[in-house]
């Protein structure tokens, strides 16, 4: 069975590792591919695609639970009512602000991870990813303790004699920003570091040899080369911020309503499923638009 023929076939395959043997419809291969990929496709089909399609359908049906026809009424409400518009605006501006801040704060850390020869690098890496492993509830409670009226910052400022009455740091847009930035920095750092790590330092050296100062070298050579890392980190941070629920609820305390809270409120508290579904669709499509823009941006900056 495993005579010279099989050996030759194997040898041929080893030479061209990415090509399956002969070029004809190979049913065995199709069956094995289906068996390998089937469970995953089934899982996402049943757990993601099908429920999403049901929700999309609900957002355009005129009545719930017994529909009589199609309507865009719920979208119209969501996209014209100032109440919803303010929430949509706040959600997306929160995401833009959080993305920008994580990029600015995270970039030097990514630089350190990619370039430093420090022996603490491994520890810094663990320090960066370990917050990902701590419960989001724990982290939000930590921020409550830091920013609260009886919290860390107010206690510190009072002890130093800087303030008499505690500052109200919670329940604001910026307290939510602080919490979100904290949660999402690791994603940005890892994305940027992985791209920075692949850039040959010789490029920067060449610029330096040609007479560019460090600032110019960074702005004209290293930064443009690492744009892909910033872009992919930004996509993750942006998407996770627009869909966030826990941090805005716990740090905003009812004062910073975002779309995720509205979806939950419409569906679970008010049991108005179609309006909730319409808000969810607006959130998904808004995210999709950002992803498309990112795809176009990457194509323009494609290095190949």
């Amino acid at each position: 069975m495993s005579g010279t023929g099989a050996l030759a076939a194997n040898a041929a395959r080893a030479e061209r590792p990415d090509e399956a043997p002969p070029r004809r419809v190979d049913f065995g291969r199709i069956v094995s591919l289906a068996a390998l990929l089937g469970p995953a496709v089934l899982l996402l089909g049943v757990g993601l695609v099908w429920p999403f399609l049901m929700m999309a359908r609900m957002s355009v049906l005129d009545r719930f639970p017994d529909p009589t026809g199609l309507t865009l009424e719920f979208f119209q409400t969501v996209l014209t009512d100032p109440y919803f518009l303010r929430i949509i605006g706040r959600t997306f501006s929160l995401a833009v602000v959080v993305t920008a801040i994580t990029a600015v704060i995270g970039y030097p850390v990514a630089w350190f991870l990619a370039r430093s020869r420090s022996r603490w690098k491994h520890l810094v890496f663990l320090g960066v990813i370990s917050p990902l492993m701590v419960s989001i509830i724990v982290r939000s409670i930590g921020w409550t303790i830091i920013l609260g009226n009886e919290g860390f910052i107010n206690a510190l400022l009072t002890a130093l004699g800087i303030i008499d009455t505690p500052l109200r740091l919670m329940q604001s847009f910026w307290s939510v920003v602080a919490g979100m930035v904290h949660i999402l920095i690791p994603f940005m750092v890892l994305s940027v570091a992985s791209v920075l790590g692949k850039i040959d330092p010789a490029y920067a050296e060449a610029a330096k040899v040609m007479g560019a100062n460090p600032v110019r070298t960074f702005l004209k050579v290293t930064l443009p080369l690492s744009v892909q890392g910033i872009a992919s980190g930004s996509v993750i941070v942006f998407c996770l911020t627009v869909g966030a629920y826990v941090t805005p609820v716990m740090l905003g305390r009812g004062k910073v309503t975002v779309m995720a809270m509205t979806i939950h409120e419409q569906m679970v508290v008010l049991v108005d499923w179609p309006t909730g579904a319409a808000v969810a669709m607006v959130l998904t499509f808004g995210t999709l638009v950002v992803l498309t823009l990112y795809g176009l941006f990457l194509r323009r900056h494609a290095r190949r």
Partner: protein
Amino acid sequence: MSDISLDPPPPHAARAPASERLLNAYVVAVLLFLALPIFIVVPLAFSDDVSLSFPPHGFSLRWFANIWARPEFASAFALSAAIAVFATALSLVAGTLAAVGLVRHQFPGRDSLVTFFMTPLIFPAIVLGAAVALMLAPMGLLRSFWGLALAHTVLTFPYVLRTAVATLSEIDRALGEAAYTLGANRWKTFRHVTLPLMRPGLLAGATFALIVSFDEFTVSMFLVGPGMMTLPLEMYNYAEFSLDPTIAAISTILLIITSVAILVIEKLVGLGKQFS
């Protein structure tokens, strides 16, 4: 987000020591920022105060005792652990199979399929939760183990798949070919050669899957109910009404568990190498 090399970078001209010191100080500052909200919780767990105020006063272990006095925490912990184990196991099976299909076969639409498999990472969790609830409600599965398990498996799958694909791509095909040539069939080759080589990657992927599922809040929010609470939701509900150090005590216990888990995995496979 591919691999980050922890090996020393190729030699290049040293930067001015001053700027290097500045960078080091900056990195330390960011690490402190990342650690502060986590470690500020721990001292409060031993506080004698009835509220979560800083600085803590006195010393008491009664908040730890309070956890035991409330059986809902234990049952929520058990449910979260069961869901996490179930979702991780299912993700491991589906993810390992899919990784073999994606890495070892060329077929049209492969890249689109990879993108599709990764969507749960960036898909808004709130939309996923609401949509799954919408689907399960008519089936009567809304407040059931199976509803939670399905949603969590969808969320954990990309983490397992990503590490499985990364590990499998690094394995030399010749090793499998050799076993095949020596008379092992495809299954035996996979079972005795490929799978053991993939083990570190799968272990790292499984760790992330466990943590992601155990910590999941937004999706679960739509799928739980009375008597069917996961730990993050139970903690949130408790904190809604009483912001006393009980929550800090639970957080401290969770911190210890995750720290031990991270250290064990770090020793076994090296998280730094596996996280990609």
